[in-house]
């Protein structure tokens, strides 16, 4: 059994695929490519593909990750090529990394995610709101859970916020918590901006990268390339 970490993009319209749709689409691409995917044992065998961190429907990504296991050792480049030949437009494998050393699953090491939120809004309003986010001690928001609504403080989940103005569009670049201890949905930040008086007429969200933490935040592909 050989483990690979694949890094892929979810661009264009395929960002409207759900987590399960994405998983199924990867599985079928693997089958069409005749790659020897490992299946779980038991009544209902499942292919060994696990996406590091589910992405909400409608959010694009330049840095998605999945662990896959193959029965045979295949060159990273070959795996990438075969998958790309069989994926729909918009889903694109950027990188394949063969994991030789014993490392935990990608899913278990993710600590943070970087997003770029593109906004059409008044830049001044945005600036003021971002300042407020930075200076606020707590930011309390209602979070919908299975058992109802719960108030949580999202401030400690915001690691970094930056803004840049590019003509009509404003970019809000954020690094926020994304781990099995809890993840902040970037759309919650939009709500905060609205609470702080920003009138948003259009937005689009792209996940840029996933990070783990060894003293500093390290991008997942970098981490898994470490010996």
């Amino acid at each position, binding site marked *: 059994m050989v483990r690979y970490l694949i890094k892929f993009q979810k661009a264009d319209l395929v960002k409207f695929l759900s987590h399960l749709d994405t998983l199924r689409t990867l599985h*079928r*691409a693997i089958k*069409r490519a005749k790659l020897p995917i490992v299946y779980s044992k038991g009544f209902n065998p499942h292919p060994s593909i696990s996406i590091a961190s589910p992405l909400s429907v409608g959010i694009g990504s330049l840095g998605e990750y999945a662990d896959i296991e193959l029965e045979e050792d295949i060159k990273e480049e070959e795996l990438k090529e075969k998958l790309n030949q069989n994926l729909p437009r918009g889903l694109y494998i950027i990188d394949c990394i063969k994991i030789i050393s014993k490392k935990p699953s990608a899913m278990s090491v993710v600590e943070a995610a970087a997003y770029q939120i593109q906004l059409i809004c008044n830049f001044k309003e945005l600036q003021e709101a971002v300042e407020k986010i930075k200076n606020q001690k707590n930011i309390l928001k209602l979070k919908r859970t299975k058992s109802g609504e719960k108030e949580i403080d999202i401030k400690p989940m915001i690691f970094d916020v930056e803004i840049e103005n590019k003509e009509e569009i404003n970019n809000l670049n954020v690094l926020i918590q994304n781990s099995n201890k809890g993840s902040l949905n970037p759309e919650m930040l939009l709500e905060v901006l609205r609470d702080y008086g920003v009138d948003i007429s259009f937005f689009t969200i792209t996940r840029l990268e996933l990070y783990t933490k060894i003293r500093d935040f390290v991008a997942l592909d970098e981490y898994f390339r470490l010996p």
Partner: protein
Amino acid sequence: MVKIPEDILRKVQKPARYIGNEINMVVKDPSKVKVRFAMCFPDVYEVGMSHLGIKILYHLLNEREDTYCERVFAPWVDMEEEMRKNNIPLYALETKDPIKEFDFVGFTLQYEMSYTNIINMLDLADIPLLSKDRESGPFVVFGGPSAFNPEPLADIADFFIIGEAEEALVEVLDLYVKWKERGGERLNFLEQIANIQGVYVPQFYDIEYNEDGTIKRMIPKKDGYPKVIKKRIIKDLNRSYYPEAFIVPLTEIIHDRIMLETFRGCTRGCRFCQAGMIYRPVRERTTNKLIEMAEKLVNNTGYDEISLTSLSICDYSDIQNLVMSLISRYEKDKVGISLPSLRIDAFSVNLINEIQKVRKTGLTFAPEAGTQRMRDIINKGVTEEDLINSVTAAFKSGWNTIKLYFMIGLPFETMEDVEGIALLAQKVVDAYFALPKEKRTKGLSVTVSTSSFVPKPFTPFQWEPQDRIETLQEKQRFLKGKIKSKFINYNYHESYISFLEAVFSRGDRRLTKVLIKAWEKGCKFDGWQEYFKFDKWMEAFKECNIDPEFYAYRKRALDEVLPWDFIDAGVSKDYLIKEYQKAMECKLTRDCRLGCTACGITKYLEGGACFNGAIFNKVSKG
């Protein structure tokens, strides 16, 4: 190209329905083709993408270099609202171009309750609803099983294709390309295709009515227009087109698997079943051909399940060999085989046992009626003994969940027949407990489902009235009261929808205005319980001054001119009358694999051969 703003897609449920871009989607440059065809299914993406017929036609038409066929589904209500609000016309998934710009807009008619969706889609596309109002733009064509009674949509269609459309559609496109190059009147094109077998152009005919509202006669407006429209069939399935690479959706659809079409037609002759009559004769693909098809489809789709499709799968003459060959070929690749469980007998329980060695999910049986008398009336050649043997075999093999399908409101049904459903279900429970404890799996569950019978054209019951809604409801209540065992669940379909189905399945062209009126009142997605508005429908009938009971509840005389009489479906009216009379006498008609029953289809075919492709005339008993 239509631009669908991202914020709309973020707002609606299941946005993947609207994006296209699937694996094996055909990509062409629309400026380089002569014909653009919008293949429409009047229901949501997940339903439409599960339908085999449009998959075949989509890929078939795209084999033509001069044609680009694209797909269109009904947007769900949330998306429709956004489209109307933002002035987005109905577009095709491939290019996102508005279908108004296309040459043809084709709809498949799978069930009557989708007709308001067709109207809604034409409206969303900004195409005039009535054929007479279309001076330019696409021709609107309908096909599919419900087109065997085309009349309720007569004023909407430019033309219909009756029967299997693969060849006829190609012939229509050939003439279209020439007509388009030459330039000419729309009428001129329609006159040309009216000579193609299977093509029906409703505007070429006048209907005269009797005083009592029945049809007096149908008159061609010109001498040259055909008096009878003969359905189309594909003679040799082994040589007919079948796609090698189905579109693989990016989001889950209802039948999310490879569909391997094993054969067409059915020989059983159940008297309520329209499919069993209109798809005659039986034509099979050979096992070798099917294995070859399966190999390509598995490679090109990446699906992990192959479903063998047909009307009655265990009647495939080489079923055992086919199933075993597929299992042994694909076991190691984790590709499973499934059978649509429609007609299950003891033989097939063993077969399904082979297929599902580990997981024993539910098994479905369709005795259709509760007493032997009633089953004889409908010519369902299944006995109580057959059913008990089958379920006993299933229980012994480890199944514990059984579904039983029945119809209520069948012709000549008595309360005793309805009670028979409860008694039969009880016997299934008893069969379970008759087994020693160690031989059965714990947790018995028997589900009884009843649907309300809808008389259909081209069946021996086409002259029969439907039971009144109140009667059906009474029968449902009565049956509920007769089911005592805690192991049996009973569920039933709403009889209001069945009533409307009965109206439109045997309706005439005076109903087009009711369809439009009902749509104006907000009726759409009528097949979806949550959107079905019975009161709006009744208002529409009233305002159009049409009595729906005339169509649903009236017993027709055998010599009445029926709205679909001008269609030759291959099965003769004499045969249908004979079968109707035998039903009244509770007499069975044998499966025609045991010997021809003279339904007329052999006269219809050149050479008169049934069972094309079958290796031998096997009939599985039961």
